[in-house]
């Protein structure tokens, strides 16, 4: 019974970390709930508060995946309540699960890259439910992987942790490989955008944007604001181009009509 509730809760939190509220999954909220399920909400609160502070500097930015806050916290509570470890030790032993949480996310994100072809097909057929399905599949995969791992931790405890550590060391290259591939895949996305937007006379603009970001992103004081400052410059270029092209169009007319101001 506890195991089933644990699976359901983990399923939801796993999805929530990217969709839904994006807040519910935070250790400070999720851990007490897990504690409640396991019959010890107080431990849940302590573990949750402690883990939240540890994870607060580790937010996902630009799609990068830090060690996973969901699985680390849940397993931490499980170990604290069921195995009876003190908070810090429980969280320490849970670190390997947060790593596997990260692997699961990486795998899902890689797999879903491939699924985009399905979404494309649905789009080409103007079929909204195809898109819904793709999204649902993704959420289910993520939820299921996480639920499985949480349940495994529930039954396997620390011993499983050690096995996983061993596994993770043996196949670190595979995870690194998936990570490296994941890091490159957004470039496919850029390429698709460029395929359409990049007329021949805009190559320079593309490279200039690259150059602008290269400076702005590498000066301490502007690195946080690199994209907004780039946009400032881009807006200047765009408005200017718009204004000039308008004038060219209008003056062509004025030349034709024989009326031209200031000549």
């Amino acid at each position, binding site marked *: 019974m506890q195991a089933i509730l644990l699976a359901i809760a983990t399923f939801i939190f796993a999805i929530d970390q*990217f*969709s*839904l*509220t994006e*807040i519910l999954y*935070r250790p*400070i909220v999720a851990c007490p709930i897990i504690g409640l399920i396991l019959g010890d909400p107080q431990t849940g609160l302590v573990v*949750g508060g*402690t883990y*939240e502070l540890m994870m*607060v*500097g580790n937010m996902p930015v*630009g*799609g990068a995946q830090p060690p996973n806050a969901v699985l680390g916290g849940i397993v931490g509570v499980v170990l604290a309540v069921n195995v009876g470890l003190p908070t810090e030790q429980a969280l320490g032993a849970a670190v390997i699960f947060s790593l596997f949480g990260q692997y699961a996310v990486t795998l899902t*994100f890689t797999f879903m890259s491939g699924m985009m*072809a399905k*979404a*494309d097909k649905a*789009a*080409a057929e*103007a079929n909204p439910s195809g898109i819904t399905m793709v*999204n649902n599949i*993704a*959420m289910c995969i993520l939820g299921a992987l996480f639920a499985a791992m949480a349940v495994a931790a529930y039954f396997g405890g620390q011993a499983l942790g050690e096995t996983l550590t061993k596994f993770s060391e043996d196949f*670190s290259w*595979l995870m*690194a*490989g998936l990570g*490296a*591939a*994941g*890091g*490159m*895949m*957004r*470039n496919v*996305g*850029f*390429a698709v*955008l*460029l*395929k*359409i*937007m990049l007329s021949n006379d805009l190559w320079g*603009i593309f490279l*200039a944007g690259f150059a*602008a*970001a*290269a400076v*702005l*992103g*590498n000066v301490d004081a502007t690195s*946080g604001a690199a*994209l*907004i400052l*780039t*946009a400032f410059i881009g807006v200047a270029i765009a408005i200017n181009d*718009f204004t000039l092209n*308008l004038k060219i*169009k209008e003056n062509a007319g004025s030349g034709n009509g024989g009326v031209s101001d200031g000549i």
Partner: protein
Amino acid sequence: MASNATTYKDLTPAAPLDKKTLNKMVWRSCQLQASFNYERMQAAGWLWGILPGLQKIHTNKEDLAASMEHNLEFFNTHPFLVTFVMGIVLSLEQQKADINTIRSVRVAAMGPLGGIGDALFWFALVPITAGITCNMAIEGSWLGPILYFIICFGVEMALRYGLMYWSYNLGTSAIATLTKNAKEFTRAASMLGVFVVGALTCNYANVSLGMMIPNGTAINEAGETVANYIDVQGLLNGVLPAALSLAITLLCYWLIKKKNWSATKCILLLLVIGIVGCVFGIFGGAAGEYTTPISVPWHA
């Protein structure tokens, strides 16, 4: 794969979107990252989010397909701010603006909003709220998690709701003057879009070489003989920062544009490159060190 349509068949502006549809899309925006992936990031979630609107706007099936296709391209922004992009894109869709314009506006908006949102929410709101509430939780009070949830989720939903309406109205009021000079506007928007993609290519660069080639010994300034390594990524940075990201983007661009590859094929290629690369210790490990299955001299 996006079709090459650049204008909708039916160019009559659709009726403005009603409140119910807009509200529905606000809620749907919460699943922006449902099928987040490395290739297009939030694309499918984005499309799903605005689908109710698109379906109202494009009664013509062909147009709906065209619109869905281009709205499935790479997309990434901060989830709490996404409705701002939604509103403005929907106002353009409603007016049947040129597809290139819509794309460019979408791309131009998403990048900066991503950066701003990360700084405001991931680096400020969440940590500040955590600081206020965590000790309550540690001291055993449920007030901690409850306050945390109310504050963060409250801000989030208020933004999702408010930005949708604000930006939809903004877009609607601006569009009249823009469509008069549609061609010029499209070009200008494309410039902005391409400029931002250029910036993203550099700023979102997320691949690096990890090779440290043992390079005999060197004699350092003090005249001592020390072990020496060549840091290949370091050398590359000296040629051009984010050079790999640029190279891969251009490679994919070339494969897709000239060799008619599908995006999926590109992804498979990158997957192979990534894994094989790590087998040979070529790439750096984003999340710490890794061990190569075969031993190579440049990977410790």
